[in-house]
C-alpha cells in the first residue's frame, strides 16, 4: 500500500486551474523526483501533499487517512527557518509546540538531529548567522525530528550558491539510502538520475509522464518531456 497518495487532485487559484486532476502515489522508501517547467503545478502538488493547501477536488491521504501534524515533512526553497530562534530552537519548535514535549526531551532529540545533519556546533547560531546550505540542513533537521512518514523537498537547493548545493544533496541522498519516503521537486538532474526510484514530468497541472530514471532520461516517450529535457541539458 502506498504511503502518500493524491487522488484526482484539482486546485484552483481564482480562475486559474493549477492542478488538473493529479493522481500520484509513493510507496514506502521510494524517492519520486518531479521535474517540469515553472508554473506546471509541481510546488502546488507538494503543498497539497503537505496539507498546506486544500484541493478543491480530490484528496490527499497518508496510509489511507488525512495526514496529521508533522507527519509529512516539508523543506522549502527559501529554508523558512524561524528567524527569531536559534538553530536548536528551530529544530525543537515542532516537538515543543506541536508534540507538547518537555524542553529537556525536545532539546535532546533536536541536538541528535542537528548532529545528523552535521551542525551540532551551530546549535546556538541564529539563521542570520548561517550559510544558505547550513540553514537548509537545519530546516531538514527541523522536519526530520518530527519523525515524518514522508519528506517533501520543494526545490530545496535552488536558492543556494552553487558551492553549497552539494552539502544539502548529500543529506538528501543519505536520507534516501536510509529508506525515507521522499518526493523531490528539483532541477538537479543528476540527483534524479542517481537517487530517484522514478521521475515524473509535470506540465500545465498534469503529470505527463512517469518512468524509472534510466528510461526517463534515455528514452522519454512524451514529446513534452523530450522538449523539456533538451532545454535543461
Amino acid at each position: 500500500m502506498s504511503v502518500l497518495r493524491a487522488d484526482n487532485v484539482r486546485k484552483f487559484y481564482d480562475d486559474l486551474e493549477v492542478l488538473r486532476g493529479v493522481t500520484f502515489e509513493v510507496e514506502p522508501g521510494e524517492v519520486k523526483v518531479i521535474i517540469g517547467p515553472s508554473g506546471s503545478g509541481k510546488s502546488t502538488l507538494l503543498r497539497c501533499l503537505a496539507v498546506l493547501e486544500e484541493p478543491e477536488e480530490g484528496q490527499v491521504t497518508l496510509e489511507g487517512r488525512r495526514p496529521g501534524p508533522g507527519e509529512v515533512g516539508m523543506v522549502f526553497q527559501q529554508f523558512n527557518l524561524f528567524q527569531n530562534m536559534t538553530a536548536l530552537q528551530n529544530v525543537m519548535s515542532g516537538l515543543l509546540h506541536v508534540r507538547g514535549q518537555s524542553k529537556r526531551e525536545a532539546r535532546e532529540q533536536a541536538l541528535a538531529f542537528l548532529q545528523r545533519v552535521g551542525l551540532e556546533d551551530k546549535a546556538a547560531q541564529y539563521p542570520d548567522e548561517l550559510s544558505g546550505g547550513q540553514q537548509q540542513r537545519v530546516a531538514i533537521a527541523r522536519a526530520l525530528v518530527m519523525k515524518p512518514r514522508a519528506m517533501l523537498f520543494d526545490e530545496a537547493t535552488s536558492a543556494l550558491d552553487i558551492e553549497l548545493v552539494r552539502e544539502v544533496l548529500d543529506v538528501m541522498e543519505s536520507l534516501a539510502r536510509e529508506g525515507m519516503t521522499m518526493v523531490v521537486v528539483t532541477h538537479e538532474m543528476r540527483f534524479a538520475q542517481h537517487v530517484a526510484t522514478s521521475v515524473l514530468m509535470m506540465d500545465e497541472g498534469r503529470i505527463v509522464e512517469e518512468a524509472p530514471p534510466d528510461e526517463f532520461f534515455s528514452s522519454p516517450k512524451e514529446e513534452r518531456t523530450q522538449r523539456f529535457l533538451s532545454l535543461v541539458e
Partner: protein
Amino acid sequence: MLASFDTHLFWSALSSSPYWKGALIALALASASLGIAVVLGFFLALGRFSRFRVVRGIVFFYNWIFRATPTLLQLLFIWNALPLLWPVFAQGWFKPFIAALVALSLNEAAYMCEIIRAGLLSVDPGQELAGRALGMPRRKILRRVIVPQAVRIVIPPTGNEFITLLKLTSLASVISLQELLTASQNLAAVRFEYIEAYSAALVYYLGIVSVLMVLQSRLERKFTWSSRGRARVAAPAVPAISHDAR
C-alpha cells in the same frame, strides 16, 4: 537676555513638588495609556485580518472615529459629555486622571492598530508557512513566530508614539489634571516668570524622553536575532505617521 534668567527660581521650580509630581503624572499617564493601547491595538490589528466583514468593519469604524477627530475634543467629550450620557461616569471615581487615561488609551489604540498591523504584515509569509508545515496551530505560530518578529519592526514607531503621548498628556491640563504643564502654568501665573517656569517643564519632558530613547535602543537590541548583527540597524518597514495635527 540671560540677565533676566533667575537661576534660583529655575532650580527651585525644578525641584518643587508640583513639578516632579506633575512629571510623574505625565509619565504614568503616557505609560499606562500606551500599555492599554498596545493590547487593544493588537486585537484591533487582528480584527483587521478577520475573515468576517463585520469585524473588519468595526475596526475600520473605530480607527476612523479616533483618528479623524482631535484628541483634545475626545478628551473633553469623555470628561464632560460621558457623565451626562451615563450616570456611572458622574460619580466620584471618574477623576481627571481616569478620564485622560480612557481618552488617550482609546485614541492611541487606533494608531497602534495600524502600526501593529504593518508590523505583522512585514513578517515573511514563509515563516507562517513553515509553522503550518510543522503542524503548529495558528495561535502558536502567531505567538512564537510572528509576534516576536513583528515586535522588532514595531518598537521604533511605538517609541515615537510614546513621545507623542507624553506630550499629549499636557492636553489633560484642560480637564484640571495636575500634570507637568499645569504645574508650570500655575507657577508662571503667580510669578509672571515665564522663562524659568516653562524651562523647568522643558527639562522634565526632555529628561523623560532621553531615558525612553535609551530604553528603546536596548529593547531593539534584545529583539535582534543575530549575535553578529547586533549593531546593524534594520530600516523600519513601517511608514512614519505624522501626529502634528493631533
